[in-house]
């Protein structure tokens, strides 16, 4: 169907994934790609934006002779995610309410 995962929706999903576990760009991209089928080039802007708004922070960890930049969620990020979750729940309820109604008529 035509449902898209762009914009704030994607931000919320990325935030939720990072909350579950600190992650780095490549790994996150493939996790998101598996479930949401977004293009690979979309992820960096999301990570950049979330970091700039202080919902995520980064730290470097060497791995196998190279560097990995990990993203981790901040306290602010957790708060944002909580309010996003509530908003999402309300949003879904509203849409389902309408779909249920028109289904029964």
């Amino acid at each position, binding site marked *: 169907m035509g449902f898209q995962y762009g914009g704030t929706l994607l931000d919320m999903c990325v935030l939720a994934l990072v909350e579950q576990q600190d992650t780095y760009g*490549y790994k996150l991209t493939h996790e998101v790609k598996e479930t949401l089928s977004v293009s690979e080039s979309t992820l960096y*802007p999301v990570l950049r934006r979330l970091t700039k708004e202080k919902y995520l922070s980064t730290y470097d960890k060497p791995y196998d002779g190279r560097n990995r930049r990990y993203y981790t969620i901040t306290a602010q990020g957790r708060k944002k995610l909580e309010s996003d979750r509530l908003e999402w729940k309300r949003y879904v309820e509203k849409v389902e309410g309408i779909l249920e109604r028109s289904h029964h008529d």
Partner: protein
Amino acid sequence: MTKQEYIQIVHSQLSGVDPRDLSDAIVYLNEYFEEAGVENEQKVIEELGSPEKYAATIRADLVASVPPRIPRQMQARPASQNSVWKTLGILVLGICALPIALPLLIVVIVLIFVGVITLAMILLVFVMALVGAIITVGLCIFEFFSTLGQDLMVSLFLLGVVLTAFGAAILACLAIGWIIKVGFPALSRWVAKLYRKLRNREVRE
């Protein structure tokens, strides 16, 4: 295209952006390639799309996050500087327009005055009608009772007059009430509207 070439193109496409944003983006891209491994280099290039498009996505996101600057000119000018010149301008304009404006102003004032007088006269007419009707009612009732025994026709006629005068009195009361409650306020509101219209035209010019 090699990984180096790809990154080089992205780098050059992103020229002009904040150097910190640029280095962050390139570090990310480089790490991405390295995680995929040398063997997957071409696959990554395929997945990411053309370097120009990849750079364009990044650039668009960077540009979008810069808050738009409101040009200073569009903001409200400080009131004091505005009103001094405006007042002076209106004053000069007023003096120049005096030969025409003054007679016009007099005409408008006279017309308003005439309007008020007219309404007052109409009111007076109805008041006099009311008084006349009341007197008629009084006299005719008296006559009615005095002629009742003698001349029936005259009595009936007088009765008719009484009733007519009574009706006229009621109508006169209604008209007076209307003029006082609606007429004068409407006139004053119309005058205020005219005044405001003139002031607005002044302010706008």
